[in-house]
């Protein structure tokens, strides 16, 4: 139970970081943290007591295995996260190029 709560804590830290921080880079770090929290939660959901890794091999007999599907699925989610993060960082660099600052309170041309 504790691990799930720690996951929730990590997710909350990420969301707090997105909502409260002013620096663009810190916001991106917040996005990454909460992304990892969700991914980790998905892997933990798949854990079975005393289970071994879900890889088939000719030598050993398979008795107790963790759920294999979330591990495959989380890999996809991580790749998506990579794409989003790369794009966000590229945007942040361009923004710094144009505005000369990372502070979102100073980057406010759009309003209304």
């Amino acid at each position: 139970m504790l691990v799930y709560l720690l996951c929730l804590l990590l997710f909350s830290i990420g969301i707090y970081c997105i909502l409260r921080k002013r620096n663009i880079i810190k916001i991106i770090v917040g996005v990454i943290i909460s992304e990892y929290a969700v991914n980790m939660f998905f892997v933990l959901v798949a854990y079975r007591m005393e289970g071994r890794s879900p890889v088939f091999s000719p030598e050993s007999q398979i008795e107790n295995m963790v759920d294999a599907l979330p591990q495959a699925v989380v890999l996809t989610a991580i790749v998506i996260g990579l794409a989003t993060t790369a794009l966000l960082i590229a945007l942040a660099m361009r923004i710094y190029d144009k505005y000369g600052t990372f502070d979102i309170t100073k980057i406010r041309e759009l309003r209304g």
Partner: protein
Amino acid sequence: MSKEHEQGMSLIVKTITRLTVGLILLYGIYIVSHGHVSPGGGFAGGVIIALSFVHLMLAYGKEVALSKLPKQASSFFESMGAIMFLAIALLGFTGGYFFLNFLSKGEPFKLFSAGVIPLYNIAISLKVGAGLFAIFVALVLLKFESEKK
């Protein structure tokens, strides 16, 4: 100092890099080619292949790495990987449906087995390796442009 800095890191790093970069690349290729019989596969192998080029760029500076794998080439390989993957999947329509495994499956746990899965792995590794390197190059070059201003 500054001139040396432009051309990359110190002599120690360069020597170690020269010795290891080939091994890293080879290990990536091994992971890709054994993707269907052991853990790993196209994605993991592709990342390792990309990292070998990133390693080169970190140690020797961007000119050396880009002369080995130019930006156009990496974006070409990236698209090529995707097209290859789609083409193999579409070839399945010859036997009835999308993603049909139309080659012979062979014997399990041998290198030449599992039909088209190794081909998919190679396509994915091209896409991932070139794509990751392209992302890295794009970020690095972008930074230099803004510093120039």
